[in-house]
């Protein structure tokens, strides 16, 4: 039988290896600590079409990820989609006329929300709704429009 001290040291090294693994996974693989603090606030936006957007899709400003989509629901009265976004507290100076567009990452990439800065002095607060929006461009609809136009000539 191995001596107790050797045993304890090897078990300690084993636990340490597990912790090192966790740290590696947390920082190298999942990239924790990129603005995921408690200072986040919530913004809403209404779109006529959110095709392809998912919960946890990116919210970006000038190409930098500043938040994630938290919830996608539907407003049954106006038949519009309501997207709830969680935005990092670091970006707290978005003006009320900020625009929100749904764009596509790359050619076949996922959909994300791109915020377009506005010029008003008044700022968006927690829970506010962005009104200046542009929904997803659906390729099929565009092609459909073109065909109808060509046909009507």
């Amino acid at each position: 039988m191995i001596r107790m001290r050797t045993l304890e040291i090897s078990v300690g090294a084993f636990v340490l290896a597990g912790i090192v693994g966790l740290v590696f996974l947390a920082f190298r693989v999942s990239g924790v600590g990129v603005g995921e603090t408690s200072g986040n606030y919530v913004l809403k936006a209404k779109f006529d079409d959110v095709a392809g957007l998912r919960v946890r899709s990116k919210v970006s400003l000038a190409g930098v990820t500043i938040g994630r989509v938290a919830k996608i629901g539907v407003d049954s009265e106006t038949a519009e989609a309501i997207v709830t976004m969680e935005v990092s507290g670091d970006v707290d100076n978005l003006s009320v006329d900020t625009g929100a567009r749904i764009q596509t990452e790359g050619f076949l990439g996922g959909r994300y929300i791109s915020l377009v800065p506005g010029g008003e002095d008044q700022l968006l607060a927690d829970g506010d709704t962005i009104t200046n929006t542009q929904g997803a461009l659906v390729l099929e609809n565009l092609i459909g429009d073109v065909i109808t136009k060509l046909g009507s000539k």
Partner: protein
Amino acid sequence: MLRYLRLLGQWALDWIGALGRASLVWFWSLAGLPRRGDMTLLIKQIYQIGVLSVIIIVLSAFSIGAVLALQGYTQLARVGAQESVGLGVALVLLRELGPVVTGLLFAGRAGSAVTAEIGLMKTTDQLSSMEMMGVDPLHRIVAPRLWAGMICMPLLTLIFNAVAIWGSGLVGVGWLGVDPGGFWGGMQDGVEMWDDIGKGMLKSVVFAMVISWIAVFQGYDSTPTAEGISVATTKTVVYSSVAVLALDFILTLVMYGEFK
């Protein structure tokens, strides 16, 4: 006809009886308060079950990570998306392969050993002698092994995941020449701490409980003969493997399924 029905009924009753005994073993082993000297027993078991499994875990993890990177690269490079190989490999490992393969290896490496050990103790009347001396074998023999299993499996899964992802990076970035920025950056963008790593670890905790439970019970409940031990050891590996795979499907369905 009636005979078959009777056999079926008997088999069902046996099975339910075994489940009852297994639950009692589990309950009574974990119910007791810790006593002096328990720590020593636990550390010995963690060494037997965990530390000695590290080598097989590291070797398998490295090969699996490397193979995933190779296969993923070949397919993704056709559409010029070879940079997403990092994200793909990481998600597959963290969510599924990490806990499952660790579970299967753990059942084969540690579970079978526990069953054989306890089975032999029973065959050589060590368990009944303990009872005669007033020592509860559930507390002294079974409980440390259950706890050690539950402590070691998640740690082994962490090591497995880390080594496998590191291995895939070594092959993907170092050998096949994937851009390291796209490889690691894509991974960090797509992997979530709780949704991917946390839920994967939750799986491994569930697997740990089930595997150590099966291993301990099969040993404790084995027929005290040489043949009985061999049957019990086989049963441990078979039952644990099937349980891990079936539970993985159920857990994935519950945790990642679209239905709520």
